[in-house]
C-alpha cells in the first residue's frame, strides 16, 4: 500500500481520534475520561501539524501550541473539580455523579 504522506498522517490522526472517542464512551472512571479527551485533542493537534506540513506553513504548529496550552489549563481545572467531587462522593465512577436527570 502506497499512501501519500499527508493522507497517511490524517488517517493516523483519525484513528487516534476514534480510539479516544471510544474510550470516552466506554470508560466509567472520570480521570480516564479526561485522559481519553486529551488523546482526542492531541489527535486533532497531530492533524493540524500534518495539514500544515502539507501546505508548508507554520500555522498548524502554532495551533498545536495553543491546543497544548488549552489542554493543560483544562486538565488543571478538571483535576481540581475531580478532587472536590471525590470528597463528596468517595468515588470516581461517573455513574455516581448523576443526581440530576430528566
Amino acid at each position, binding site marked *: 500500500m502506497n499512501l501519500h504522506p*499527508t493522507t497517511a498522517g*490524517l488517517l493516523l*490522526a*483519525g484513528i487516534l*481520534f476514534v480510539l*479516544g*472517542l471510544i474510550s*470516552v464512551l466506554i470508560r466509567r472512571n*472520570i480521570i480516564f*475520561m*479526561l485522559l481519553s*479527551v486529551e488523546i*482526542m*485533542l492531541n*489527535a*486533532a*493537534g497531530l*492533524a*493540524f501539524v*500534518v*495539514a*500544515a506540513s*502539507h*501546505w508548508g*506553513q507554520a*500555522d*498548524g504548529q*502554532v*495551533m498545536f501550541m*495553543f*491546543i497544548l496550552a*488549552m489542554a493543560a*489549563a*483544562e486538565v488543571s*481545572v*478538571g483535576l481540581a*473539580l*475531580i478532587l*472536590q*467531587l471525590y470528597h*463528596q462522593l468517595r468515588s470516581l465512577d461517573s455513574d455516581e*455523579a*448523576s*443526581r*440530576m*436527570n*430528566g
Partner: protein
Amino acid sequence: MSFADFISLGPLITLFTAVVISMLLIAFKRNHRITYVFSLLAYLMALTAIIPAMLYIPHTVPPLLVVDEFSLFNTGLVLTSGLIILLLSYNYFEEREERKEEYYLLLPLATTGALVLVVSRHFMSLFLGLEILSISLYGLIAYLRARERSDEAGIKYLILAALSSAFLLFGMALVYAFTGHMDFPGIGAALRQAGYIPVTVLAGFGMMLIGIGFKLGVVPFHMWAPDIYEGAPLPVSAFIATISKGGMLVVLIRFYVDIHGNDYSMIWWMLAIVAVASMFVGNWLALTQQNIKRILAYSSIAHMGYILVAFLSGVQTGLEAISFYLVAYFITSIGAFGVLIVMSSSIQDAETLDDYRSMFWRYPWVATVFTAMLLSLAGIPLTAGFIGKFYIVMAGVNGHMWFLLFMLVINSVIGLYYYIRIIAMMFKSLATGEVTYIKPSLPVAGNITLMLLTLLLVGLGIYPTAMMQLIQQMMKMIV
C-alpha cells in the same frame, strides 16, 4: 500593533486589563464590595471604549480579528448583558459563598472570551475565544462549593465541552488540510475556486458543527443544557443561556456568510435538520418539567432552533431578524433568571413550580415581571419576543422557507403551553392552612434591574423601529 488596532480592540483590551488588575486587587485586599464595584466600572469602561472604536470601522487586524459594525453591535450587546448579570449577582453571592471575590475574575474573563468570538475571523481566534469562555465557565459552574449539584454540573460540562472542542479542532484541521487557509474568507475563496466540497471538508464541517452546536445547545448536542442550568449558580445559568450562546452564534454567522454557506445544499440541510430537531425536542421535553431552571434550559434550546430558521433563510432580512431576536432573547432570558435570583432565599434557589404557587398574591410586582418575561418568551404581542418572532417569520417568508416556517408556528403553539402553565401557577389563589414558602431575598439592586429590563422589553415590543434601524445600519456591511 498600530494605534488604530488598539482603539478598535479597546473594549476587549479594557476588560482584559481590568481582569488582571482585579486579580491583584483581590490579592491585596479581599473585599466583596470593592471587587464588585471595580468590575462594574470595568464593564462600564469597556462599554465606553466602543465609542472611539466606531471611528475606525471597518478595521481588520490581520489575520485574526475583524472589527466592523456587526462585531461592535454584538460587543455592546455582550457587554451590556454582562453588566446586567453582574448587577444581579452581588446579592446572590453575598448570601451564599465564603470566597466570592474570584467570581468577579471569572465572569469578566468569560465575557472576554465571548468578545474574542465576536470579533474573530480566523480558526485560531475562534478556538482561543471559545476556550477562554469555556475554561472560565468550568470554574463559574462549580463555583458554589457547598452545593452538592454544582461540582457534578461542573465536571459534566468540563468533559463534554472538552469532547466537543476536540471535535471542533479535528474538523478545523480537516478543513485546513484541504483548503490551506484558516481565515474564513480564505476558506470561502478556496472552496469557491474548487467549485465543490470534497468529502473531507464536508466531514470537517460536520465535526465543527458538533463543537459549535454544543456551545449553542442545539439538538442533538443539547444533553448537557438542563443539568448545567440546574446545577450552576443562577447568574451563571443566565450567562450560559445568553452570552455564551450569543458569542458562538455570531461566529457561526460570520463563518457561514464568509464561506457562502447557502451555495452548498449539504451544509444547509445539516443546519435545517438541527433547527427542526431543536425546536421539537426543546419544546417537547419542556412540557413535563417541574423545575423552572430546566424549563428555561429546554426553552432556550427551542429558541436557538427559531434563530436557525432565520439564519437559513439566506436573505438580508434574516440576519437583521437574528440580531433583533438576540437582543429580545437576551433581555428576556436575563429577566427570567433575574426573577429566579430575586425570588431565591439565602439557602435555597426558588426553582420548582411549587415555589411560584400563588406568587401573584404574595409578590405582585415580581410576578408581573415574570409574567412579562414568560409572555415574551412565548412571543405574545406587546413584548420584544413577539417582534423578534415576527421578523423571523418575515425573513422565512422572504426566503420561501415554508416548511421551516410551518414547524416554527407549530412549535410556538406547543411552547405557549408550558409558559402559560407557569403563569397559571402564579395566579392560583392563596392556599388555606399552613404552607411554607421560600423567603425571597428581594434585593433592591435586583428589583431595579428587573424594572429596567421590563421597561426595555415592553419598549422594544411597542416601538421596535429605533432598534431595527440601528440593526439595519450595521448589517449593511456584512452582506
